[in-house]
């Protein structure tokens, strides 16, 4: 059998594919964070909690309203975005003029409160959420068994990431948004309602988190801490990609997923730290991140 790095090639391909799947989650989550940081200058620490709430809305919808997975995929982001918009209007909007630290502390506090409430209501062990019938089963690729659902996760995430990138970089709306971050006063003077745009951006960012939460629900158990386990890694991804860089967060998300996948075969004990080692190296060499502009 052919081997690479002393590992059978088949096993290596399998692990790389799995890395890509995990990378899809990192990409969608870090994309939302990068968007919010880029346009609002807020380090949204409640992103993980919002991802968790997305998964819970899917479960609640299924249990109490009979809403299936596909409905949840639309419903959960809308519900979480609506809550996000209220948070932005009532709390976050007061902090834009202050230091980053205030936004970070507020969103961190919110994350703790949200997680605490869900923990109190649903316990810690989590709740089962079945893979939708249409996506159950899997394909035997020869080198590994690929569950259809995981393939769907990669495709859905890619479409979402590319779509968001196009929206920001190639449309008129995106141009307004980018202009508003550079110079809000000037853009406002041109008759564009900047506060509304910022509010909607926050809503969109957290909707991405909720979408990832619904994607994750059938794979991991839906539990109140699912977000806090992931959020630190996602922050590292954003830092490596360059704070606020859309393309940076997407590419870095997938790349680090691959790297983590490789580490799990070569030296599993380091799998949870390899991303942070990369972060240290990147910060030393290129403090603005791989795709960041200026320092």
């Amino acid at each position, binding site marked *: 059998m052919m081997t690479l790095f002393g590992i059978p090639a088949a096993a290596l391909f399998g692990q790389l594919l799995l890395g890509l799947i995990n990378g899809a989650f990192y990409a969608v989550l870090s994309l939302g964070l990068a968007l919010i940081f880029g346009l609002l200058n807020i380090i949204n620490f409640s992103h993980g909690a919002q991802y968790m709430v997305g998964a819970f809305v899917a479960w609640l919808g299924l249990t109490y309203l009979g809403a299936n997975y596909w409905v949840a995929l639309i419903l959960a982001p809308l519900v979480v975005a609506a809550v996000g918009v209220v948070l932005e209007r009532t709390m976050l909007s007061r902090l834009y003029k202050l230091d980053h630290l205030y936004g970070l502390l507020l969103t961190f506090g919110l994350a703790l409160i949200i997680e605490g409430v869900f923990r109190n209501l649903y316990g810690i062990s989590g709740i089962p959420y079945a893979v939708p019938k249409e996506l159950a089963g899997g394909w035997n690729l020869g080198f590994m068994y690929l569950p259809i659902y995981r393939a769907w996760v990669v495709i859905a995430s890619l479409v979402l990431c590319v779509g968001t990138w196009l929206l920001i970089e190639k449309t008129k709306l995106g141009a307004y948004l980018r202009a508003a971050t550079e110079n809000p006063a000037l853009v406002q003077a041109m008759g564009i309602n900047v506060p509304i745009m910022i509010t909607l951006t926050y809503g969109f960012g957290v909707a991405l988190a909720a979408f990832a939460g619904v994607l994750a629900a059938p794979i991991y158990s839906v539990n109140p801490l699912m977000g806090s386990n992931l959020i630190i890694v996602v922050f590292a991804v954003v830092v490596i990609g360059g704070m606020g860089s859309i393309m940076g967060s997407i590419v870095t998300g997938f790349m680090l997923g691959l790297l983590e996948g490789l580490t799990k075969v070569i030296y*599993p004990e380091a799998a949870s730290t390899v991303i942070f080692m990369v972060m240290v190296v990147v910060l030393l060499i290129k403090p603005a991140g791989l795709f960041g502009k200026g320092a």
Partner: protein
Amino acid sequence: MLKKALIGAVALTALTAAQASAQYSDNKIKIGVLTDLSGTYSDLAGKGAVVAAQMAVEDFGGKVNGVPVEIVSADHQNKADIASSIARKWYDAEQVDAIAELVTTAAAIAVREVSKEKGKIDLVSGAASTALTNAKCSATGFHWTYDTAALANGTANAVVKNGGKSWYFLTADYAFGHDLQAQTERVVKANGGEIKGAVRHPFPNSDFSSFLLQAQASGAQIIGLANAGADTINAIKQAKEFGITQGGQSLAGLLVFITDVHSLGLDTAQGMMMTTGYYWNRDDETRAWSKRWSAKMDGKMPSMVHAGTYSSVMHYLKALAAAKTDDGMKVADQMRALPIKDASGFAVNGKIRADGRMVHDMYLAQVKKPADSKGAWDYYNIVRTIPGDDAYQSLADSKCDLVKK
């Protein structure tokens, strides 16, 4: 009339005399339940353990020889340093006489050191490591509910005897996981089985696909899960997703609580074998107690840690009454001497050994098929009762210095 009053007076004096001879410091008994109230283990231990301890006090009548009993509780967050500082505060400043529950081995060992130094009683229920009755044993320390040796002896024995000869481990990369893997390997090898390999995963970990693929490639018949809680749940769920169980390999959950099965759902968990110290639906006695507990816990059913906490606190109260003092050494002697029996139906054939191990019957359980389950929380078939002496490490192998050899 006069006669009755006389008898009454005599009885009363006798009672007060008995009280006067009993020596309880501060005229109060305080039992601390130190557990994980908010983290990974808060469902299998947590608030349910506090409720169980309170039930024991209520069932005992709220008083020991006329002295009131109080339960206090705190969250150790699964951290050894927090656990030992709370234990010190409780013993030194708040007149706590004993500490119960203590999930998470590191936290339990930290409290064990403090209790030993102060000559106070600890009643460990949730922690798993056999270290508590070996290198870390204490004359006033007890390990009540289960341990890694009992889990390995129960599950691994049964699985190897059913033909699961070759094993691969997914092991949580910390002391508990290593201990559980080592104990299980020992049993597998002793039964003529073979170890194909192991992978250590970070703790906690949510994505197991890559480790499962390695386990699949090993070709082992059995994938042993030497982890706990959310890690076990995610590993089992993803094994199903990746077609591992359909592909002919079986999973052996080495530490699975009923709360984990509840979270997985029967559809995913069905057929799995495990060892448990307690099952609520085993007989009339366990059902009656569990339903009382359930009424206080929103319809959930108790894990072995909950029932074990009740049983250990109840036995401690009986020993306090018999010893007529709260002196740790004297109470511990009574605990070893008194028969263990309580309303929860825990501790069948229970006895406490010199190393502090409460040896009792364990159960080999298999998770029911969804169709066989008759209602909420009806999850297990008890396949076999494992007599306590077979389940636990033999006293001859103990490294505890209290064991006379």
